Structures are given as C-alpha cells and as structure tokens.
C-alpha cells in the first residue's frame, strides 16, 4: 500500500543543522511544511557522532507539530550513512534524504538499509519515505532512473551548489546555469509521478531575487523549495497560495466529478471548460494548497 504521505504538501523544506540545539528546539514555529535535519554538510567532520545523538533525542522528544521530519544522511561514499539511517529511523523520522544521488542503485542501496532499520526498530514497513538530492551532471542525466528506483521515493531535489561546481560554473543569480537541470528534473519527476523540489537561495538579503526565483520555479511546476532561513518561508507560501478564482473552480471540479462519477458520466463542462477525471488530482491539490495557505473557507 502506498504511504499516504508520499503526496503530502511540501512547499517549504527548511534546513537545520542537527547538531545545533538552538536551531532544532522549536523550528516548527515558522510553519514550514517539512524540516530537514542535516547530518551532512552543516555538521563538522568531528561532530558527526554528536549530531546523531542530538538528532535522535530531538526527534524522540520534541513535538514538531505536524512538520514533516526529513533527515539528510551523509553521502554513500562515506562510512557514516548506514549508521545515520539506523539513528534516523530509530528516532522516528518520516523521510531519509539521500545526498549526491547519481543512480537508481544509490536509491536501492538506501532503500535496503531503511527497510532493515524499520524491521530492527519495529517500525511498520514502508513508513519511512525516501527523497533523492541530485547534485551532479550524472545525477541529472539519470533523473528518470532515480525517480523510478523505489516505491518509497516521493521526490527529487536539485542541489544547485554542488551541481554548478560539477558543471564548472557557479550560481549567478540569473538562474541561467540551472535552467537545464531544472527542466530535466521536473520533467523526470512528473513522468514518474513524484515530486520535485528546487535548490536553496542563499542571498538572504535579496528578497526581490528570492521572490523572482520562487515565482519562476512555481511556474515551472516545482512542488516547493529548500529553505535556509525562516524568513524565506512566508514568501514561498504566499507565492504558492492559489488565487480565489482557481480555488472556486477547483471546488466545482471536485464536486462535479464526485457527483458525475456516481452517475457514470466521464466528460462534462464546468464554467464552459471541458472537464474529465484527469482534472481531479490537480483540483484536489489546489484545495489542499488553499487550506495550507489559510485561504480556504469551504467544506471540502
């Protein structure tokens, strides 16, 4: 059975250094959809061990009030990732995020460990999801294979910093260097029926630039964005808030399809537009977004 959280709303995923108590004690206050506890790059090499204990007890004790708990594990080329998975799964994480994913085999390797950890720590099979961060040209070109590698994989994310290094360029602020990767990833994700997330934006003081980038990735079809500072969250949520007319339309579509389905009618019109079952998921998503954005007043 598919984990129902696979399709949950993930507009914002906030990075937190798992080793820093001041950061992990109540980040839910900023209301991101997902929290990403980092065991990888944010944690100094000699603190990797301490970060796990910190992560374990934080996840076990702190009520993160509905935020999804994602743990970014160390790269598969290290001797750390396997214990990272045991720790995170035992602690009750919702998602394991694989860094530097390059192949479908990488995903399968993690999947095997996650499954073993679920058994070891008595968690229901399939309760821990996986997402893959793509940080290299090879990973981008293998996106389709990665997206289809595991039933547990709910989505992929672009990691722009490492990817541009691999491309032998750097983040310019214009987005031109990320254009190809963004297009390939979103197309691959949609083709596989999984979600797709954009990279972080690190120029914190440039709110205008951030806004432009979020508007762009929203238009491109991305499900959400990785966040490095809580002040970016409300901007993403604002941009992802559906317009009232779209909400009304989605509401009509859902109601019509629900009632027409019962009558066995496949195609009909809403507000003069031809509608069929293919509109259903999109309309449902719009309602869900509207609810999360606090602008939905209806009863669906």
């Amino acid at each position: 059975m598919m984990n129902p959280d696979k399709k949950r709303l993930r507009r914002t995923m906030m990075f937190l250094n798992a080793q820093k108590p001041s950061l992990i004690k109540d980040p839910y206050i900023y209301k991101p959809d997902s929290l990403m506890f980092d065991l990888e790059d944010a944690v100094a090499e000699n603190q990797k061990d301490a970060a796990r204990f910190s992560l374990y007890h934080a996840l076990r004790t702190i009520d993160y009030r509905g935020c999804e708990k994602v743990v970014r594990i160390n790269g598969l080329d290290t001797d750390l990732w396997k214990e990272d998975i045991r720790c995170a799964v035992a602690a009750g994480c919702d998602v394991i995020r694989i860094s530097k994913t390059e192949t479908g085999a990488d995903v399968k390797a993690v999947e095997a460990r996650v499954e073993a950890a679920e058994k070891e720590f008595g968690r229901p099979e399939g309760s821990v999801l996986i997402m893959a961060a793509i940080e290299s040209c090879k990973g981008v070109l293998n996106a389709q294979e990665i997206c289809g590698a595991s039933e547990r994989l709910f989505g992929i994310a672009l990691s722009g910093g490492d990817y541009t290094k691999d491309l032998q360029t750097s983040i310019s602020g214009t987005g031109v260097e990320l254009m190809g990767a963004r297009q390939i990833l979103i197309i691959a994700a949609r083709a596989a029926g999984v979600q797709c997330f954009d990279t972080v934006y690190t120029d914190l003081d440039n709110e205008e630039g951030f806004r432009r980038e979020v508007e762009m990735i929203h238009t491109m079809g991305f499900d959400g964005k990785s966040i490095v500072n809580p002040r970016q969250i409300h901007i993403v949520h604002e941009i992802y808030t559906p317009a009232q007319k779209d909400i009304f339309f989605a509401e009509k579509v859902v109601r019509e399809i629900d009632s027409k389905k019962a009558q066995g009618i496949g195609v009909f019109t809403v507000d003069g537009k031809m509608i069929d079952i293919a509109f259903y998921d999109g309309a449902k998503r719009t309602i869900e977004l509207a609810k999360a954005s606090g602008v939905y007043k209806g009863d669906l």
Partner: protein
Amino acid sequence: MINAVGRDIPEEILRLTGKEVFQGNNHFDGYEYRRQAPKVKCVIDPEKSKLRSSIREVLEACGIKDGMTLSFHHHFREGDKIVNMVMKEVHDMGLKDIRLCASSLGKAHEALVPMIEDGTITEIRSSGVRGEIGKVISEGKLKGLAYMQSHGGRVRSIVSGEVKIDIAFIGAPTADDYGNCSGIGGTSDCGVLSYAAADADYADNVVVITDHLVPFPNMPAQISMTKVDYVVQVDQIGDPAKIATGAAKPTSDVRKLMMADNCTSFVINTPYFKDGFSYQTGVGGASIASAVALSKIMKERGIRMRFGVGGLTKPMCDILNNDQVDCLLDTQDFDLDAVENVKHPRHFYISADEYANPFNKGAVVNRLDFVILASLEVDVHFNCNVVVGSDGVLTGAQGGHPDTAAGAKCSIVITPLVQGRIPAVCTDVTTVTTPGESVDVVVTDYGIAINPRRQDLMEAVKDAGLPLRTIEELRDIAYSITGEPKKVQFGDRVVGIIESRDGTIMDVVREVKEFSFAE
C-alpha cells in the same frame, strides 16, 4: 501581610520602611497631601558666582556630611561619568552612610561596588540596577535596603517628601555659568533632562555639572537657573558613544517579526486604533518592528496618531518626520536619531513628573491608548517581573513599565515564550514589579493571551483571526517545552523592595543563596 498581588510582605519591612502594602492601582486616587518644599539659599548679590572649580569644592560648599541623600539622573545611560566622578570624591572624603537616589544605575557604575561594600553607600533608590551592583545588593552587601522605583514612583517619593534630597547632581550637556541647562548640544548630547527635573525642584542643593559651558543665557533651558546653586565644569560628563547609539538595525529575526506582527494585528483590531490615538513603545526588536509595521498600516488606512510618548527611538521619530503624528512627548532618547529629533518643533520635552507621577494632578501615562512593553516573566495572573533575573539577582529596571501599564487603556507585553530555558509565561513570577491588573495582553511567538479582566478586548478581536490562547495555555506550552521550573532558592534577609508607583510595597527581594540540590 499579604498585598493585592498576593505577596506576603514581612511585618518587619513594613515597620522599617513605614510603608503600606500594595492595595491596588487606584487605592490612593483622590489622596490629599502637601508637597514638600526645598530649602532655598537666595542669590541676590549680582557679583556672586555660581561657578566652582571642582567636585570637591562644590561638595564642601553644599556642606556634605555623613548620611546625606545624593541624587543623579541616567540620561547618559551606559555612558554616564557623573555618578562615578562625584562618588569617588565622596569616597575619598571618607564619608559614610550616603543614600543614593538615582533615576537608574547600570553597568557604567560598577565603581560603586567597593563603596557599597565599605559602607560609603548604605541605601539605594533607583529604577533598577544591573551587573555587579545588582549582584552585591543581592548578596546582601548593601547595609540598608535597595528601593526599586518606577520613573513615576521616584518623582512621587521626592515630591511627597518621602525622600529628601540633600544634593542633586545634574549632568548637563550644555549649561551657562548661572545654571541654565539643557540636554541639547555639546559633546554629550542626550536630548532631554526629564528625570532630573524633580531633583532640581525639590533638592536643597542643586549642582549642575557640565563639560560644555556656554555664554549666558543657555536658552531654552530645560532646567532653570532659578533652581541651581552651583555650576562645575569638568572634562567629560559622558561617553558619547554609549549615551546615544546608532539606531538599532531593524530586526531580521523572524521570531521577533512574528511577535511584532501579532502585536500590530492586535493593536489595529482594538477600538482604540482610530484617528487621534496615542502610543508608546519600547526599545526591543519586536517593539520597534511593531512600530514600523503600525506606521505602514496607519498610512494605508489614513489614520493619524495624536501623540507618541517615549523613551524614544528612530521608528517613533520617523512617524513624526513622516507627519503621521501631531506630536511626540519625550522623557528620554535612546538613539542618535531621537536625540537629533528633539529639535523638531512638535517634539516636546516633558519631565518625569508630567510623564508618570501618580501623585500629581494627572500625568501623560493616563492619556495613553497603547503601550508596548517587554518583560522577563509574566505569570498566569498577568503580573510582570522586569527586575529580578532567573538567578534571583537584581538585574533590570522598572523604568516606566508599571506607570505606563497602569495608565494606558491597552497595555501589551511582548515576550518570546521561552528565553534560554526559562519559560517567560509561568505560574508565579519570581518578583512582582507590575501588577496583573495593569496588563491587558501578552503577545508571544506561540500566541496571544488577553487578560480575562478585559472581556471588551476579547470581544473586539474575536473574529480577527489572531492566534488567541489563554494565559494558562501559554504557560502549559512553555512548560511542555522546558519542564516545570522550580522556584529560585532565596535566603531570608530582605535586601530590596519593589516599590509600587504609589509608594506601597509590591514585593520584596531577598538575598540570594547558593543553590542546593533536592535530597
């Protein structure tokens, strides 16, 4: 005896101070008394000079002796040099049992510590104490009591004769040789001299100390020559860098911005937010952010403020510069923008008496619609503590907190729910400084609680979509994060009293003692 906020005030302290326990904000409304009058030594002979060449000389001229009460103002804040300068001389003269009556004492005054320890200073009245001074008082090294007073309460104690100032020392950024002084100009510009006004009116001897002597007349004078006995010129009365700092950068801390947002949303949903309203706010990041946000909404809705009060900072002065307020009433300036803004024709200097004294015929605080305050702790009775730290040590100042909270129609306290591991909303504050009857709303990062006494406010904002909680809910959330805190372990000896603005006793502060683990 148990007072109106439920604090047990020891009989011996009531006997020792001759004070009553706190019986509610308006207990003394309509109370009649005769103001005290100072001794005046006339200056008739035009040939006489008021100038003295040194602090020592002026102390002798005033006839300083053991047991006298000396007063100071704190407009130079952490840059003040006057207190240390005078007290060093007092100490060098071998005087004992001096009573300090300062409008506030801070980290600039740590030189007083040995003078407290050796009995030069045996009683302190101040809005607050910080750093090492707070520590030695809490360790029981001050022979007499520390009286923590609000700004209005201090004026009341002076005007009513409870405190008789023998010599008032007024640091003045500019003064002439006849004593006309002003907070404006010179190198130690602090804007206004509000806290010193009552001292000048009621002290037997008034000494002006300046580092910028100007030709007579220094007009307009915030304190007039008619009240001044002596003038001393010294090299430096303050450290300009610490008197008024650059305006605080608007906060980018999202938690503070969220609290500011909650605060502003609350304010604009009350019936008081309408053309002609009045407003005072503090210097914290969230308070300042809230003032900035409010000014934007005022503009959008075409609402104009009648007057703003302060403790002023740049955001309030910006509201004046943008012509969104008719006038500012100023008792203190916290940054260079506020100091500079004193010159604006609709920025008015007021004395601490006019600002907040409950024992005059009506003060500005009584006309406030909103005041935005901070607090170390707030309890489920809405009592606030702004003076005693989590370690039980005296570490803050009452300032205008109890005065404005009592006067304003809507008093809002902003605080993060948890600070370090200390729950800011708790069952009982360590020490009560502002009574819950004065506090209407508590705004935190976890929601807003309205005092149940204010059903009208609850009604007014109930459909505004604010994250409303009860104060008990806020406390429970805080405790669920931090665990339930135990009470600070104090010794027996009372080292200080929290004086209510009307002079009664709100609470006592006991000596700290070393923590001991249970069992």
